[in-house]
C-alpha cells in the first residue's frame, strides 16, 4: 500500500514538473501575424524629427497587441497618414504654433496593396516651431487606448479572412497564369499567400510545386534547344552554358546527360583536352519538395525584383497619392 502511495506521489510530482516547463499556449493564425512599422517617405508633412517618434508609437501598438516585425522586408505593415486639420500661429512673444492633427493608422499588405484596417485619432500640439508642435502632438497618441486593440485585432482577422475567402480565386488565377506560360507571375501569386493562413498556404505550396515542375520542364526544353543549336555550331562553351542551367529535377535531364556524353566523346576523339564540364547533380538527402519550393521562391522573387509585375510597387504611392 505504502509503495502504491509513494509511486502515485512520484508520478504526480513528475507530471506537474513536466507540465510546468512550458505553460505558454500556442499562438493561432492571428497571433502569428507580425506587423512591421513603416513611415514611408511618401508620408509627407511629418517632420524628420517626428518620424522616429511616430514609428515608435506604431511599434508599441503592434507589440502590445501581438507581434512586431522587422521593417527590413515587411509584408504586413502599420503605416501612418497625418493630416493637418488646423494650424494657428499666435501673434505673441514668442510666436507659438498650435497644430490640430488627424493621425490615421492603416494595417496594409505591402505586397498585394490591400488595406485591412484603419483607425484615426485627433491630437493637438503646441510649440515654438512646427517640429516641436508635431512632436508634442504625437506624444499625445495614447498607445494603450482601446481603439488600437480593436484596430490590430480587426486588421489581423481581415488578413486571415481575406486569404481564406480568396484562396480558390488565388489558386485558380495562378493556374490560369501558368496556362498562359506566365510561370514566374503564377509562382509569385502562390508564394504571396502568407503562412499565417495555414490551409491556403499549404494548398498554394502544393500547387507551387506543380507549377514549378511545369516551369522547369518549359525551361528545360528551351535550354536543350539552345545547347543543341550551339553544339551544331561546334560552340562547346555556349553549349556548356545551356547545359549548366539544366538541373536534375527537370524532365529533359537525361537527354542533357546524353548530349554531354556525346560532346565529351567527340572532344576526346578529336584529341582535344578533356572537357571539364559536368552536369549538376543533387544530394539525395535533400528533400525534393522543399528544394522545389525554394527554387520557385527564387523565381518569384527574381520576377518581382525586376519589376515585371505591373502592380508590384514598393514605393507606397498607391497609399499616399490617390
Amino acid at each position, binding site marked *: 500500500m505504502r509503495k502504491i502511495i509513494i509511486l502515485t506521489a512520484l508520478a504526480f510530482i513528475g507530471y506537474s514538473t513536466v507540465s510546468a516547463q512550458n505553460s505558454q499556449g500556442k499562438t493561432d493564425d492571428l497571433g502569428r501575424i507580425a506587423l512591421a512599422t513603416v513611415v514611408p517617405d511618401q508620408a509627407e508633412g511629418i517632420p524628420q524629427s517626428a518620424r522616429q517618434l511616430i514609428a515608435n508609437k506604431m511599434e508599441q501598438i503592434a507589440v502590445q497587441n501581438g507581434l512586431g516585425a522587422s521593417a527590413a522586408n515587411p509584408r504586413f505593415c502599420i503605416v501612418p497618414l497625418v493630416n493637418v486639420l*488646423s*494650424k494657428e500661429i499666435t501673434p*505673441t*512673444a*514668442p*510666436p*507659438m504654433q498650435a497644430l490640430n492633427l488627424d493621425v490615421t493608422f492603416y494595417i496594409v499588405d505591402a505586397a498585394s496593396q490591400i488595406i485591412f484596417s484603419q483607425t484615426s485619432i485627433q491630437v493637438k500640439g503646441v510649440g515654438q516651431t512646427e517640429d516641436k508642435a508635431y512632436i*508634442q502632438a504625437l506624444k499625445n497618441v495614447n498607445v494603450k487606448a482601446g481603439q488600437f486593440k480593436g484596430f490590430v485585432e480587426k486588421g489581423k482577422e481581415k488578413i486571415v479572412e481575406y486569404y481564406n475567402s480568396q484562396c480558390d480565386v488565388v489558386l485558380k488565377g495562378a493556374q490560369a497564369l501558368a496556362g498562359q506560360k506566365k510561370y514566374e507571375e503564377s509562382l509569385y501569386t502562390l508564394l504571396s499567400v502568407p503562412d499565417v493562413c495555414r490551409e491556403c498556404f499549404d494548398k498554394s505550396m502544393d500547387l507551387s510545386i506543380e507549377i514549378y515542375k511545369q516551369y522547369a520542364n518549359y525551361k528545360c526544353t528551351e535550354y536543350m534547344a539552345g545547347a543543341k543549336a550551339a553544339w551544331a555550331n561546334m560552340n562547346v562553351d555556349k553549349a556548356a552554358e545551356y547545359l549548366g542551367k539544366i538541373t536534375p529535377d527537370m524532365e529533359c535531364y537525361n537527354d542533357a546527360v546524353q548530349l554531354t556524353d556525346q560532346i565529351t566523346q567527340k572532344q576526346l576523339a578529336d584529341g582535344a583536352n578533356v572537357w571539364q564540364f559536368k552536369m549538376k547533380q543533387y544530394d539525395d538527402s535533400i528533400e525534393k519538395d522543399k528544394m522545389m519550393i525554394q527554387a520557385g521562391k527564387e523565381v518569384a522573387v527574381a520576377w518581382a525584383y525586376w519589376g515585371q509585375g505591373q502592380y508590384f510597387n514598393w514605393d507606397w504611392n498607391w497609399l499616399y497619392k490617390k
Partner: protein
Amino acid sequence: MKRILLSSIFLLAALVSFGQAKKPIIMIVPSDQYCISRNYKMTFQNQGMTQTLPDYKTALQTDPDLRMVITKMGQIMADRGFPLKDLEQELKNLEQERAESSMLTSSSSGSEMSESPIDALKRVAKADIIMDLDFEIKRQGPQKYITFTLKGLDAYTAKQVSGAAGAGKPSTAASPELLLEEAVLSYMDGFNAGLQRHFDDMFANGREVKVQIKVWSNWGQNLESEFGDDSKELTTIIEDWFADNCVNSRYNLSDASENFMKLEQVRIPTMRTDEKGRPRAVDTRSFISDLRKYLNGMGVPSKLYLRGLGEAWLILGEK
C-alpha cells in the same frame, strides 16, 4: 519740471488708492511696424497663407536705439512708482522656464509635470497694458529729428487707454541718442496723464473687462434653453446676473447667438469684502467665479477659463 512733478503726484495718488487692488502689468513692446520695417521679423507658411510676425528677441538683442528708448521709458515709469515688466528679460525667463519644466521629474516615480497644449500656448510674454512703441530718426537737410508714437493699449478690451505722438525739434548738434532721450522725456508726461485718467476711471467706475460665455459641443443644451422656476432663457438669466453685479449695472452684450455671448465693457468692482469681512481685490476670474457658482446652483455646470487679468471665458456644459 513742474509738469513732471504734478504727474508724479497724480500717479502716486492713484497707486495709493489702488494699493489693495490688483495692479495691471505694463510692458513696452516695439510695434509691429517698427520691427517688420527693420527686418526684425519671422515669416511662417500657414496652410497657403504667408504670415509675418515681429521677432522681438532679435530686435531687442540688436537694436541699440530701441534698447535706449525702452530703458529711458522704464526708468521714468519706475521713478513714478510703476515699474514695467521688461520684455527681453521675460523672453529669457520663458525659455528658462520651458527648459526647466521639461527637465523636472518627480523624485519618487519619475513622473513628468502634466501640461496640456493650452498650458504650452499660455507660456508667452503677457501684460495687461501694452505700451506699443514706434519711433524713427529722420533727416531734414543737415538736421535730425525724431518721430515718436506711443500707444497704451488694454490687452483685453483692445482699447487705447493713453497715447502720445509727434515729432521732436530738429537739431544739427545733438546726437540721435540725445534726441531720443529728449523725445521720451517730452512725451512721457502726456502719456502718463492719459494713463492716470484710465486709472481714475477704473477706480470710480470699476475695471473694464471682457467676458465670453460659450457652450461645450456635447452639452445638449444651449443659451436659448430655459432654466429656473420661471423658465427663463439662459441668455436672459446671465444678462440679469451681469446687471445685478456690475458696477452701476454697466456692461455691453456686443454679440450673441445660441452658442455664445460676448460681453464687453463689463465694469467689475476693484475691491470687495469676502465672507470673513476682509477686503479682497477683484479680478475677472473671481468675478466670473461667482457667476459660475450661481449657474451651478441652477444645474448648469461650467468651466472657467482665464485669459488674464481682464478677460475670462465661461464654458457651459461641463467642467
